[in-house]
């Protein structure tokens, strides 16, 4: 086995990033394995936009080079279109920025009226509305049960809707995480127990979840084909959990988080047979 080389690149879409990487390595596309570290996302109104990040590894000569590549490649039919499409496949979720609000954007469950909310939802909603007002953010909050269907203990979702809400999401969802943390803290204090609520902004989390699930599946395929552990980008706890859950029942890989704090990331490990 000759030694393998690898390079990581990022660009506004996956195809461009791959081309850059190929140039850097000076090899043909057939001789590399493409790992998509992060799918591109244009965020909401440009805020929270992320480039595509990929890793190219020269394949060992014994390996049929085209096989491993076939998995991630079709995900990005970018060259067919003149403009690089920043968002991957499912258009209903990702291709709609916040501005297209009045059209059928994100598929949200029907909101619940105040009389049908329990105490958690009511207190959470009041707290969140107060916080938003003090932050001088104009937005509407709709409330519904998370459609997890697991049990009737699924959390209430406080979905924040409105224009220009990118600021409420922040880089890697940091602002949204802080807003949720403070809202829960205040509501839980008032309720004197853990408030069963989660926050979202314009369906950001649901979209992110879809992207992460797809990423997880594809990286699992990579791990199997490479026969070695594949490491994903650092992610916040909530996002790592989505990846772990997506692969929990996968027969051929296991997952594990490694690293500390902000650098903690998921690794996908092929199972030994």
């Amino acid at each position, binding site marked *: 086995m000759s030694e393998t080389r690898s390079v990581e690149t990022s660009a506004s879409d996956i195809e461009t990033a791959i081309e850059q990487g190929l140039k850097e390595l000076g090899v043909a596309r057939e001789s590399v394995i493409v790992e998509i570290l992060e799918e591109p996302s244009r965020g909401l109104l440009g805020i929270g936009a992320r480039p595509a990040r990929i890793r190219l590894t020269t394949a060992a000569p014994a390996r049929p080079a085209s096989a491993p590549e076939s998995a991630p490649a079709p995900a990005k039919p970018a060259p067919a279109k003149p403009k690089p499409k920043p968002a991957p496949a499912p258009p209903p979720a990702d291709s709609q920025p916040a501005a297209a609000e009045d059209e059928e954007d994100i598929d949200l469950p029907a909101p619940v009226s105040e009389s049908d909310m329990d105490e958690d939802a009511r207190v959470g909603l009041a*707290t969140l509305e107060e*916080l938003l007002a003090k*932050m*001088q953010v104009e937005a509407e909050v709709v409330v519904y049960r998370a459609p997890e269907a697991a049990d009737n203990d699924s959390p209430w979702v406080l979905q924040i809707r409105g224009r220009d809400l990118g600021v409420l999401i922040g880089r890697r969802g940091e*602002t949204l*995480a*802080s*807003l949720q*943390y403070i809202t829960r803290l205040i509501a839980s204090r008032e309720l004197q127990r853990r408030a069963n609520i989660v926050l979202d902004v314009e369906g950001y989390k649901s979209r992110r979840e879809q992207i992460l699930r797809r990423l997880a599946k594809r990286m699992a395929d990579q791990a199997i084909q490479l026969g070695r552990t594949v490491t994903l980008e650092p992610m916040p706890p909530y996002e790592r959990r989505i990846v772990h859950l997506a692969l929990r029942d996968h027969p051929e890989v296991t997952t594990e988080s490694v690293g500390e704090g902000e650098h903690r990331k998921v690794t996908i490990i092929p199972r030994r047979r």
Partner: protein
Amino acid sequence: MKELVEYIAKSLVDDPSQVRVTEVDEGASTILELEVAQEDMGRVIGKNGRVANAMRVLVRVLAAKQGKRITLEII
């Protein structure tokens, strides 16, 4: 501008009457000084400063809207 911090702090402490937020203006940037009762310090700081940091992140949203730099100090 201080209302946000005041609201959060008062909602988290045992003694809201001792919550005080002072705005110190320094041209383009503003410092928000948060004072709470000694026994309540832990509540507004949190484990590893988690509460304080979350407050700072939210203050930043407000700061961005006003085109200012706002720093939050707990004293």
